[in-house]
Structure formats: C-alpha cells, structure tokens
C-alpha cells in the first residue's frame, strides 16, 4: 500500500441532482492538474457509473447495498474503500453515494463532505434534505443555467440559511463551468488520510424492525423490534 496522503471526498445529494456529472467534471480538472483520482460509487440496485468513470481513465469501483440502507453500507465499507483508494495510488478518493432518504449525513468528521443540489427542485427542497446538506463542507448548486439568475440567487440563499458555514459553489455539470471553484474548495481543505477511528457526523437512524429482516405480512401481530407508531389528531 502506498504511503501517499490520500484526500477523501464524500459526495451526497438527492437523486438526479447531477452528482455524477459534477464528479466527472471534477475528475477532468484533477487529472489535468497531474493528480490521480479514484472513484467509488455506492448505490442500491444497479448503476452504470463504473463505465462512466472508467471512461475518464480513473480507477472506479461500485458497491451495491441491495437490501441494506446504503449509508449504513457505506459506513460498514469505508475502511475497505479507503484502502482500495490507497492501493490505486489516489491523491483524491471520491466516494459518491446515491441520494435516498437524506436522514443521514454519510460523511465522517475528517473527510470532506460535498452535497450536490439542483435549482430545478425548487427553493423548498433544501429544507427537506437534512444532514447531508446541513452538515456538509461544500454545497454544489447545479442546473443554474436552466433557471433565471434571480432564482439561482434565491436558491443559493435558501442553502445558506440551512448551512451558514458551507462553501457554496455553482457548477454546470454539462459544460463544467464552475467546476474549478469546486476543485479549489477541495484543494484548500484537508482530510484525514485514513478513516479508521474517524466518526460519522451524525447518528444513523436505526433500522431493525421485522421488515428489515424479511417480513412481508402487514399487521401488528407480525411486528417486532423497534416499532414506532403514528399518532393522529382526531
């Protein structure tokens, strides 16, 4: 294994926000800078992203969480992913997680956390996203070219309210404009070179009810474990 100091960047955000496009643009800049990138995509069922990334000439790996929450899956595999990145001699290891429930912040305290959001989802979306945005270091806003300048600025403001300290950058995933700011933001941040002993930024939700372990039948009599019931205002 290489002794080279590897920077670890974890990219999250809602589905179809443009995470893969943004990472693709970022990799081009990293490569142009003479550095080595490696990418690991964590998804649930299937993804074509390994081919997308491999086409850029960088080491690419895919982890499919299948029946398990993918943020849990990432936490379980982070040590191995980091070791893989080091074996690939990566200066920057990018881990992309598919956006799902947004209840978790997938990043650890000493990795660089990036959240990708797109303006087309509307100004109320940042409010609904939770820790993946509020705990991130860099928020990337995409698809700004599809809305008016004023709307991009209002969207920017709604992100700022939820995360007052993150660096916000606007990137066009299709053309790559703005990706230089994302790269600059990553370059000026440090991350731990290993992950063992590092901590998650937030507790992950527990998921140990009957349905987590294969129950299919509906009804109280079939439910065990952590069972939380709704309350209704009559």
């Amino acid at each position: 294994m290489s002794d080279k100091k590897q920077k670890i960047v974890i990219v999250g955000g809602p589905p179809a926000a443009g995470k893969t496009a943004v990472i693709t643009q970022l990799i081009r800049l990293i490569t142009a800078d003479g550095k080595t990138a490696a990418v690991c995509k964590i998804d649930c069922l299937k993804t074509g992203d390994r081919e997308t990334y491999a086409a850029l000439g960088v080491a690419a790996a895919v982890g499919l969480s299948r029946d398990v929450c993918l943020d849990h899956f990432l936490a379980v595999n982070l040590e191995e992913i980091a070791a893989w990145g080091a074996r690939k001699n990566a200066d920057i290891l990018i881990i992309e997680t598919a956006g799902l429930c947004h209840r978790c912040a997938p990043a650890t305290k000493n990795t660089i956390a990036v959240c990708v959001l797109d303006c087309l989802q509307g100004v109320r979306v940042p409010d609904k996203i939770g820790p993946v945005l509020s705990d991130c270091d860099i928020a990337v806003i995409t698809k700004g070219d599809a809305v008016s300048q004023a709307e991009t600025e209002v969207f920017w403001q709604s992100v700022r309210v939820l995360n007052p300290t993150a660096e916000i950058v606007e990137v066009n995933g299709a053309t790559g404009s703005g990706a230089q700011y994302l790269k600059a933001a990553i370059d000026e941040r440090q991350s731990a070179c290993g992950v063992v002993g590092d901590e998650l930024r937030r507790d992950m939700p527990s998921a140990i009810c009957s349905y987590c372990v294969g129950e299919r039948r509906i009804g109280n009599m079939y439910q065990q474990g952590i069972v939380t019931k709704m309350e209704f205002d009559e």
Partner: protein
Amino acid sequence: MKFDAITILGGRDKDGNPERVGSLTVRRGEIFSVIGFTGSGKSRLIRDIEQLAQGDTVTGRRVLTDGEVPEYRFRREPQFKVVAHLTQNMNYITDLKCGEFLRIRAECRKIPSPALNAERIIETANGLCGEPIAAATPLTGLSGGQSRALMIADTAVNAAAPIVLIDEIENAGIDKAAAMRTLVDGDKIVLAVTHDPMLALAAKMRVVMRNGGMERILGVTDGEKLALERLTEINAYSLEIQRRLRLGETL
C-alpha cells in the same frame, strides 16, 4: 465594485485554435451586440463574462476589469455579483408568489427596503407586458410574456451591477425595442446576444461569433444605418399589425 471597462482576452475556439479576436474591450455606456449562427458560441461568451472567467473555463478566455484581474469574491457570492444576466429562460420554476420571491431576491443582494424594491420591479414589468402581474400571483402561474417582463424588470431595477448581459431578448413576445430601452437605460457595459438584425444593428459595435470563437468586431457602417432605419419601420409596422390582430380586428 466600480470599474469603467471590461476586457475579454481571447481563448480558443471549438477546435482548440486561438480566437481570431485576441482582445475585446467594452466601456461603460457602450452596447455591443453578439451575433452568429446557433452553436457559434454566443451564449458561451456571455457565460464567460458572467463568471469573469480567468482561463478556467473551456474556452480559456480571461475577463479583466479596468485591465486587472477582478477580486475572487466578486466572481462568487451573489451580493457581490457585478453582472446582471438576462438569460434565455422564458419561465420560472420557483414555488413562490411574485412579491415574496422578489423580496427574498432583494435580501440576497442586500438591497435596502426589499418590499419597495419588489413593488418597483412589478410596476416596471407591468409597463412591458399586456396582462398585469400582481404581487400575489405565483411565479409559476405567469405567462411566458409576463415571466420575461418580470425578468427584464428585475434585471433593470436591480442594476447595481455595472455589466448587463442580455441573451436573446427578442424571444419575449413583448416589444423588444422597449425591453432593450428598459434594460440599457444608464451607464452600463452592455453585451446583447441576438438573432434579430434590428437589435444587432442598434448596437454601436458587434461581435461576430464563429465555431466557438470571437471572429470579428465590426462597427456600424453608413449603409447599415440606413438598413436599421428600414428595419425599425418594419418593426413598428409589424407591432401595429400584431396589436390589431390581438384585438381581434381584421386588416
């Protein structure tokens, strides 16, 4: 941020060759039109200026203010933005009412008295479009013409920015000459992308784009001044016919 001119230093065209125009300077009070076929790189030029590119976009262009590299923060945070950009977008997607949206927008830019600012923008927009806009109208419920009028008014009223970039104002379905007057009323550095020959010739100078690069910079000739007069008459005639047809008249 105060400056009197921007200079665009040429980068590369789509084939990676140096642009024919190596340097273009536009001063306050000047309007340059940007013309060329679809895909010739007009919008890309506008984007480079909006970002105050520093050799860090695909074209490799650099944009200087008063001959110097602008400060980093002016290229980033909205409240420091030095560029007002009217894009080609014809509708809003934001789920807010017009008045509320304009207030938040004014707050983003740290504009004093946001409510008053919102009123002024709506008033200006209503001078441009046939159907009036109310503060309580949802943005997404505006017609194409109303949306466009509101975007133009917003750009014009909040024009603290010294640079104004206009992308195909003729797509609005509103009086393009009136819209241009609303936008460029003042002491601004203006670049207007257009396919419209009248708007192209109304600018003192024009930039011709080709294959992603700035190909030529041309001033208006005497012959073109005559052509502009004719085009202006034709436009007035066209608007009058449009007005009458909209009223349900026969000609």
